[in-house]
Structures are given as C-alpha cells and as structure tokens.
C-alpha cells in the first residue's frame, strides 16, 4: 500500500498538467493515484477542524466530491494540491461549525510550553559555563539511525504530539510541504508555524533519545 513516492506534488508542472488532463478525461487510475497520494494528509488536516475520526473521514469524502464538481473550473492558478486542500479546509470548517468545535490551532501549543530540552541537563547560572550542557546528548549509532527502527520511533513519537504540532511536522517533514503552503492552509503565521515545527521536532528528538538510550547501546 503506502505510496513509495517521496511526497507531495505530481512531479512538477508538466506532470500536473498531464494528471489534470487524465482526471478530466475520466481516468480512474489517475484519480485513485491522486486520492492515495493525499488521503493521509487530508485526514490529518480535516481532523484539526472536526471532532471525531468519523467526521474527518466524511469531510475528506465530501471534499473529493467538491474536487470533482470543480474539476472543470480549476484554472491551475495554484497547484492542484493546494486547490484540493483549500476545498478540504472549506468542507472541514463548515463541518467543524456543526460539530461546535472551535477552530483551530490550540493556542497553548504556541505559548508557554517550556523549553525543548529539560533545564536540568544544563549547568545552572551559579556554575561555571552557565547554560552549557551538564548532561549532553550522546551521538546515536549510525547503524540505528539508518535502520527502520529509527523511522518507526519517529512515527511513534509523532503520534504522541499535540495536534497542531503533529499536523505541522507531518505536512512539512512527511509530506514535504514548504512553510508557505502550510501557513496558508492552516491560516497561521510563518512564525507560529516555525514554533510548532520546532516544538514537534524537539519532542520527537527527545523521544528517540530516550528510546535509543533506554534500550542500551548495541
């Protein structure tokens, strides 16, 4: 199942035009490929606006219907992907209002979350070299970093993150979106996007460190 392609867009502008032509011509394979490529990210994004997993799935289905309806009108001023996700977000917001779920980025994910690394790993201000490591990170063995174990740990860690952080890191690092696209889609500022990404990656790093450390060196 899981698509092997690195991420995101249909390999460049020419690829997208071809894809669009195939879709408009009713090519089922092209349609299913498009659906598979974006499904996971669409669910993630939808989940930010609605209450339940089931609602998110419905929103994604609804968005695809919207995409089909609008396919003849799509002018290619944005990428196909951002057009699809714009439709998705509109559907999700409408549904979110029904669900009475206030959209969207929980502000407490932005403010006041404490530092990326526990303060007791640094020398305190009364010591020499205040603010420098007292318990520094140990390099991770290459063999483990390059193994599927590492990828599995990152997946596990991602699932533990608060929603906005998880969404931003997934879109950026898993799906390969650039920061501008993420900001536009979620309606957040560049700065906030970066804070969320930073929190997310820092926590994932800490999680991996803990797991690799607690299992002992090979």
């Amino acid at each position, binding site marked *: 199942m899981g698509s092997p392609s690195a991420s995101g867009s249909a390999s460049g502008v020419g690829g997208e035009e071809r894809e669009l032509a195939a879709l408009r011509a009713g090519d089922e394979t092209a*349609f299913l490929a498009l659906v598979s490529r974006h499904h996971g990210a669409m669910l993630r994004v939808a989940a930010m606006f609605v209450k339940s997993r089931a609602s998110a799935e419905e929103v994604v289905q609804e968005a695809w219907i919207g995409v089909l309806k609008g396919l003849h009108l799509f002018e290619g001023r944005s990428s196909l992907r951002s057009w699809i996700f714009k439709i998705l977000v509109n559907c999700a917001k409408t549904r979110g209002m029904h669900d009475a779920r206030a959209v969207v980025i929980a502000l407490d994910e932005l403010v006041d979350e404490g530092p990326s*690394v526990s303060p007791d790993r640094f020398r305190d201000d009364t010591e020499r070299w205040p*603010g420098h490591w007292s318990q520094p990170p140990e390099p991770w063995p290459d063999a483990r970093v390059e193994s599927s174990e590492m990828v599995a740990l990152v997946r596990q860690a991602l699932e533990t993150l608060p929603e906005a952080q998880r969404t931003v890191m997934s879109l950026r690092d898993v799906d390969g979106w650039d920061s501008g696209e993420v900001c536009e889609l979620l309606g957040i500022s560049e700065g906030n996007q970066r804070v969320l*990404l930073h929190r997310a990656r*820092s926590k994932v*790093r800490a999680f991996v460190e803990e797991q690799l450390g607690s299992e002992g060196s090979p």
Partner: protein
Amino acid sequence: MKLSVPDVSCRELVELVTEYLEARLPVEERTRFELHLGYCDWCRTYLRQMRQVRDAAEELTEESIAPEAKSALLAAFRDWKRGSGGDEP
C-alpha cells in the same frame, strides 16, 4: 570579532535549531550559532540529531486509504464521469 559577539549558550542554541535549519536566523545570530558549533561537540551532536529526526520523518508514509472509502470514491468518480462526461471532445 569574537569579542564583540556574545556567545550563545547551549541552552539557547537548542531553541534556535529550527530557525537555523529553516535559514531564518538573522545574520548576526547565525554567526553566533555557528561560532558556538565550532567549539561545541555536544551542540553539533544535538543539531545532527535534529536533522536525523527530520530525515527519518521523510521516510514515513501517510496512512493509506481504507478499501471502503476507496470504493466509495471510485463510485463517486464514475457518477461524475457519467454526469459531466469528462471533457467535451
């Protein structure tokens, strides 16, 4: 130069890593960041780990679509095809 540029501490550096990787640090801070890395193995390790995390995330694939959802969409696509007939010839 070194004299006029206050050092960044490790505790500060770990909070700047993402801005650094995103190339969003102002020049002066970037210089301090890199000066620090020049002598601090530990922070170099930290930075490398943040890159390793990012790179491992790239290897992940998103959840794939459930078969029922897939066939529902395919049915919708076929309806659409019948209804609007794809592009006019």
